[in-house]
């Protein structure tokens, strides 16, 4: 049941074959059983139960008449822990915000709630989104559910497995301790408390920085999840976890309430198990928000369902040659080729195109990212909110201590680099240079689209999900440079992109391919992605065996 798509789950809620309460309990149960994935850092089960209760009543009241029911009535979701949720801890997986409870909901979260979505919990991530493996979190790393050997079905004694009764009261251990409690004491970088059945570090990373959300969707904890995408943070883990991950056009989804990494690049990301599902969620969240001056105000975007019968004959698919980058694994290259061929065989025009500045994009990304990070992190000083160091000698001394203790090494390193690039003497040389290169990257895309290309087809990542021990053998920046290689140019240009599972590699791990669309033509891109999805018939991860 937990492998259903969002669309299927909704129709079963609608026809009454599934109750919202039942669905909610199932999801909570799955979340508890897959706890060692470390996907959820703040469970909100009691809130979820209340929301599910309301949904159940609504469904029983409205019955089969769908007119008064809300669009996501009773549908469990998970939200990345960098979206503000009113009254619910929002930590960015950082010590800095360990105790931060926002007094407001992010616009996109609010819009999901307004349509009846049920929040199951906040998901794990790299601290402030700075990472591409979801390994740099105060809560410990996220584990990829694919090829993961769970221990808890064997180690937890019979009886306690009936977690629905165990978690029925808000004071129950499942909620009171929660995953937050479980991992609070874990030293950063050493992994969760539960090593699983693997040899040390042999499991796969979930990708990042929205690894918790991707793992939760893949593991069947929820039907849709919010991630954020600054340089690939939604698409990278989606690819590694075998789910669909959408980065919308910049300005389509409000960033109000998304705790920023790089304002000029990032967008809320949407993860689900099918292209139709991400489309449904996008329709619900898209549109003008008076709180975010960068949201579109015109009618260039129309919410609509994707067609069922899709014809790709009239389409022009571009294959950017620069996306065959050093380090591309044979499996991924193979999947990419097969996909291109599929389009060709179906009558689409497929051509090689060139985006000549692709290889410089990641460098440009590093400069711009560090600069905005240095700026965005300046607000964390321990006065109004956030970690406050025990130091009252002077304002600056207190700030320095709070920030030093509150941020991990990766965040601190980017702050330094950003401030270095922004120094008066370096500004032209680094910051402006990067902005100029950014224009060239954007112009590359504009040119190929002007030449008639509808959608670009590329790999999402170089390989399938790497092993944790391999991943952590190099530093955060090195991993960033390789992990975000195919994803961050899209953020530079502000255009939409979606990753769709394309199959399994010889390791039995999923990989995704990326479709890149034109500004605000998210629907056209998603339609192409849906056609591809129909051809691939990718089988979602099924963890139903955990239920027994």
């Amino acid at each position, binding site marked *: 049941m937990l492998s259903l798509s969002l669309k299927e789950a909704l129709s079963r809620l609608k026809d009454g074959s599934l109750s919202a309460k039942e669905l909610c309990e199932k999801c909570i149960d799955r979340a508890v059983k897959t706890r060692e994935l470390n996907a959820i850092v703040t469970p909100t089960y009691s809130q979820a139960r209340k929301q599910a209760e309301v949904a159940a009543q609504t469904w029983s009241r409205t019955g089969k008449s769908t007119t008064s029911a809300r669009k996501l009535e009773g549908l469990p979701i998970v939200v990345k822990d960098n979206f503000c949720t009113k009254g619910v801890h929002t930590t960015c997986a950082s010590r800095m915000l360990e105790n931060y409870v926002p007094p407001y909901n992010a616009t996109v979260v609010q819009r999901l709630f307004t349509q009846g979505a049920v929040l199951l919990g906040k998901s794990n991530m790299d601290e402030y989104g700075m990472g591409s493996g979801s390994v740099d979190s105060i809560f410990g790393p996220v584990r990829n559910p694919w090829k993961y050997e769970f221990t808890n079905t064997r180690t937890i004694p019979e009886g306690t497995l009936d977690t629905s009764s165990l978690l029925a009261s808000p004071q129950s251990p499942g909620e009171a301790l929660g995953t937050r409690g479980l991992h609070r004491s874990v030293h950063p970088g050493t992994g969760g408390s539960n090593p699983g059945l693997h040899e040390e570090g042999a499991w796969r990373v979930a990708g990042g920085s929205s690894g918790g959300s991707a793992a939760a969707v893949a593991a069947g904890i929820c039907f849709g999840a919010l991630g954020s995408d600054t340089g690939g943070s939604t698409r990278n883990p989606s690819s590694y976890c075998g789910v669909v991950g959408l980065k919308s056009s910049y300005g389509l989804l409000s960033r109000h309430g998304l705790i920023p990494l790089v304002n000029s690049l990032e967008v809320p990301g949407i993860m689900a198990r099918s292209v139709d599902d991400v489309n449904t969620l996008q329709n619900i969240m898209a549109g003008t928000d008076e709180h975010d*001056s*960068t949201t579109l105000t015109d009618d260039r975007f129309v919410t609509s369902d994707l067609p069922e019968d899709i014809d790709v004959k009239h389409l022009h698919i571009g294959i950017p040659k620069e996306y065959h980058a050093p380090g591309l694994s044979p499996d991924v290259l193979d999947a990419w080729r097969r996909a291109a061929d599929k389009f060709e065989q179906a009558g689409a025009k497929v051509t090689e195109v060139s985006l000549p500045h692709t290889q410089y994009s990641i460098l440009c990304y590093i400069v711009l990212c560090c600069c905005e990070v*240095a*700026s965005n992190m300046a607000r964390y000083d321990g006065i*109004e909110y956030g970690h406050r160091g025990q130091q009252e000698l002077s*304002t600056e001394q207190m700030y320095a201590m709070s920030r030093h203790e509150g941020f991990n090494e990766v965040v601190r390193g980017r702050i330094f680099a950003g401030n270095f690039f922004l*120094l008066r003497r370096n500004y032209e040389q680094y910051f402006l240079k990067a902005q100029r290169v950014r224009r060239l990257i954007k112009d590359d895309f504009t040119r190929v689209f002007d030449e008639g290309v509808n959608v670009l087809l590329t790999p999402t990542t170089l390989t399938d999900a790497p092993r944790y021990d391999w991943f952590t053998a190099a530093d955060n920046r090195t991993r960033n440079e390789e992990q975000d290689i195919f994803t961050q140019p899209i953020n530079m240009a502000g255009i939409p992109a979606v990753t769709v599972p394309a199959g399994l590699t010889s390791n039995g791990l999923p990989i995704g391919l990326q479709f890149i669309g034109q500004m605000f033509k998210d629907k056209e891109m998603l339609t192409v992605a849906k056609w591809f999805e129909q051809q691939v018939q990718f089988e979602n991860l099924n963890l139903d065996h955990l239920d027994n």
Partner: protein
Amino acid sequence: MAAPMRVRAPRLCQICKCFPSSFLRCSSSTTSKRKWEGVVGLEIHAQILAESKLFSGACTKFGGTTNNQVSLFDAAFPGTLPAINRRCVEAGGQTALALNCQINKVSKFDRKHYFYADLPAGYQITQLRQPLAKQGSLRFPILRGDISPKCPLDYMTVRLEQIQLEQDSGKSIHNEDDKQSLIDLNRAGVGLMEIITAPDLSSGLESVSFLRELIGILTTVSTCNCKMEEGSFRVDANISVHQPGEPLGTRVEVKNLNSIRSVKNAIDYEIRRQKQQLQQGKQIINDTRSWDVSAGLTLPMRDKEIELDYRFMPEPNLPPLHVYDNTSIPAGLNPSQIVNIDVLQQQLPPLPAQQKQDLVTTYGLPELYAHRIEVKPGMRDYYKKVVEARPKDPIYIAVRMMGELLGEMNKKKLEFNDITCSPETFGEACDLRKLNAMTTREFEKVVEDLLENPPSETHLNRIRKRLLMGSRDSDEQLESICRQVLEDFEQGSHLKNAKLKRNPEKLLIFLAQQATKKSVEVRFVHARTVFKKLLNKE
């Protein structure tokens, strides 16, 4: 406008009488006597009169409950974003037009980074690269203390480099005893116009004259209330000294000058200080100083000057700000999204310079009077109403208003919009004074009464009555007062009396002065006549 509009005539070198171009040659001689000149540029932070803040919907009212006029954005809560207030853009535009600035059709916002406890985001959103407006100018009269109303005013023009929109910071209350600062963010995020002048001023007097004109303009166009005591109009001064013809000297910034008097004193002090330093062969340190009002000194704000680098960066959450004119309005844009410079221009009320000219031509006022009436908020309107009711002598009314009326108002700390006395009544009092129906001191009393709320006409009524009954009673009364004074005089010190008696004219003046002190109704001239009569009898 590349060159300063105010070109100073080259002054002769004091030592060798050569022109500045040959200064190099004579610089080896005694430097102490050479002429040093102050160079001053001002940065004015004027709070925009608006209901809500620049980027948030929180209230801007002064003096609210602590931290209650604060939105999550103002407190820099993570994830909050700016949304610009249309009113602030319009106010900035109107101010720019009133100050002859070029308005940028597209302007941009930048972040300026520094850590301070009352700056919650760690940066201020301001406009550096492409401000709302630039290259303006302001012509204003220099108001020396000794100018005669007969002389035309001496004008100068200062260039304005730019006007930018930016956020105000919160307020810190420093508590020395508890070794902590208390932070109130009510002011954080209020819209400011930062107006930056070129270094075209040279003294406290010029600076203050400029500021008065500017305040007049801002209050006229209603974009700032300019209440310095509430911090809605704050001045920083960049001050250096140099010798004419030489490059500018090292500049010192004096921050947070909170009254006109402080501006004047601080600038004059700082110029003096720098001259002294240089004359003693010392270097000027490029530092930031504050003005200590009680000690009358500028003091360095930090123990040691550290390198500042604000690391300016484009504000990524605000697309470019567009303003239009009649020719450039794009089709299909929602009217609520259009700020049209041509419309703003039309809506501008007549500016002070125009108003002054009108006062001069309509009422025949000397420029100085017109100026004084114009610069005081609300005074022009009141003056016009008084003259309308009592059109006989506009100049006389102006003198009375600038004299007794302003004097009494200052004592009571009143502004023109606090006055409830009708212009007609005040005009009548002026007329009565002009007719010599009352003494200066009586007139002061009358004015004092009229400034009560509600106005009291006790004194005025006595004078009205006295005028009706003729002056006989008062003549008798005057004579009896004078006799009393004379008696007192005879009983006074013999030595002093003898000295006075040797000079009859001085004696008359002395006695008449004594008589005026006895009663407000005694007029000096009349008393003198009476004494002359009385003394001659003897």
